[in-house]
């Protein structure tokens, strides 16, 4: 059985970040591992991502970041918390400097995958940490 079976993920850029290649590749990697990926694309505000997460009832949110828009990622985490959605982890990938990654994790981002991260690492992390992980392993 494929690892991602039954797991729904959002993959999105945030704010005015138009660098879609990384997000599209991760979406494809997750698809091939059996995940169902809602691909939101570019120019998404934190509010739009929140609404998508509620309506699509997803288990994890992946943000691809190549435009230093870290404040919006933090705001997304805050919005999720305010809307009782903190059981849905937010993970990030992209060219995020180490010290910023540390700061993001301190502010509620679940994990940051820097350039060079392997597909297996990303998949393994999501399977173990996405919402509903306990239900699926039971």
């Amino acid at each position, binding site marked *: 059985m*494929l690892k*991602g*079976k*039954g797991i*729904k993920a959002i993959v999105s850029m945030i704010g005015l970040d138009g660098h879609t290649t990384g997000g599209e590749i991760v*979406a*494809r990697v*997750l*698809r*091939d*591992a*059996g*995940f*169902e*990926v*809602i*691909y*939101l*694309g570019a*120019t*998404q*505000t934190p*509010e*739009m991502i929140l*609404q*998508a997460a*509620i*309506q*699509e*009832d997803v288990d994890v949110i992946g943000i691809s970041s190549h435009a230093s828009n870290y404040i919006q990622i933090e705001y997304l985490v805050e919005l999720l918390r305010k809307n009782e959605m903190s059981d849905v982890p937010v993970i990030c990938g992209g060219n995020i400097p180490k010290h910023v990654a540390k700061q993001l994790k301190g502010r509620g981002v679940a994990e940051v995958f820097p350039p060079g991260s392997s597909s297996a690492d990303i998949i393994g992390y999501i399977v173990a940490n996405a919402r509903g992980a306990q239900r699926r392993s039971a």
Partner: protein
Amino acid sequence: MKINGEDKGLIDALGSGDIRTCARIISRIERGDTEVVSLLQALYRAGGRSRVVGVTGPPGAGKSSLVSQLVKVWRKRGLKVAILAVDPSSPFSGGAVLGDRLRMAEHSCDDQVFIRSMASRGQLGGLTKAVGDALTVLDAMPWDIVVVETVGVGQNETDIIRHADVVALVQTPMGGDDIQAAKAGINEIGDIYVVNKGDHPDANRTCRQLRDMISLGQHLNPGDCSWVPPVIKTQSLLGQGADELADQIENRFRNLRENPEMARRRARERVRHRTAEIVRDMLDRRLHSEDGQAVEAMIDSVLVRERDPYALAAGLIAAMT
């Protein structure tokens, strides 16, 4: 039928338009949670109000963008809209990239619009088995219109007519010559025909071919002339034609109200199809259940040709009753 307390709470939440409740129930349906069946039964019996519009057509024809433009028109007219958008699952990994929501981004933060993406999960008719149940859930909510967008279809995926009251078939120019338009299957199911990408030089020719195909059908089968499927040219990126399409959808709903016999015939077909879907699902589950020792033994006996697949099928059906 007696409704238990938990279901009663969910029914009330749906009735008041609670999006989270709706989203979670659809997830349970997609997971194949059998405990949701009693709720679905209660909802079905109390339901039947919603107006369902199906949008189908080949991949890349502009279905999602067109739906987004339609939603814009409906919102201006004060209507509340729910959308189920189906995209294909991988036959290899079972995974999917669902990209319909992306085209409807402008409605993301409108709380009178609900968008749910669904993966087809191996169903071949252009929809997923969960669509029927999800429609039952949406029917219990205060939506004025429910849209079902199929996966991009080819020539033969016509399941949408078993779920929608009104079907819009979206085509693009350059679809082929008039013989393509004469072929059976998907060409026959439109209540309304849309030629999208209407700025293409061949758009008018495609519209003409479709009109010819429709009028020939009316001559050969003059039984029901109360509705002649219109052909509309649209440009979904600019929203051109969306008003006219919304008008024609409204006209078709009125036409169905005025022809209760026809509406009833279609509704009966829908029940038949839905029931067959449920039976198939029950058998599938039995055939694939991991704890089904008996089934595995039966499969082995077919493998060594002591029995045959017909006997196995009869055995499965007998075990269910």
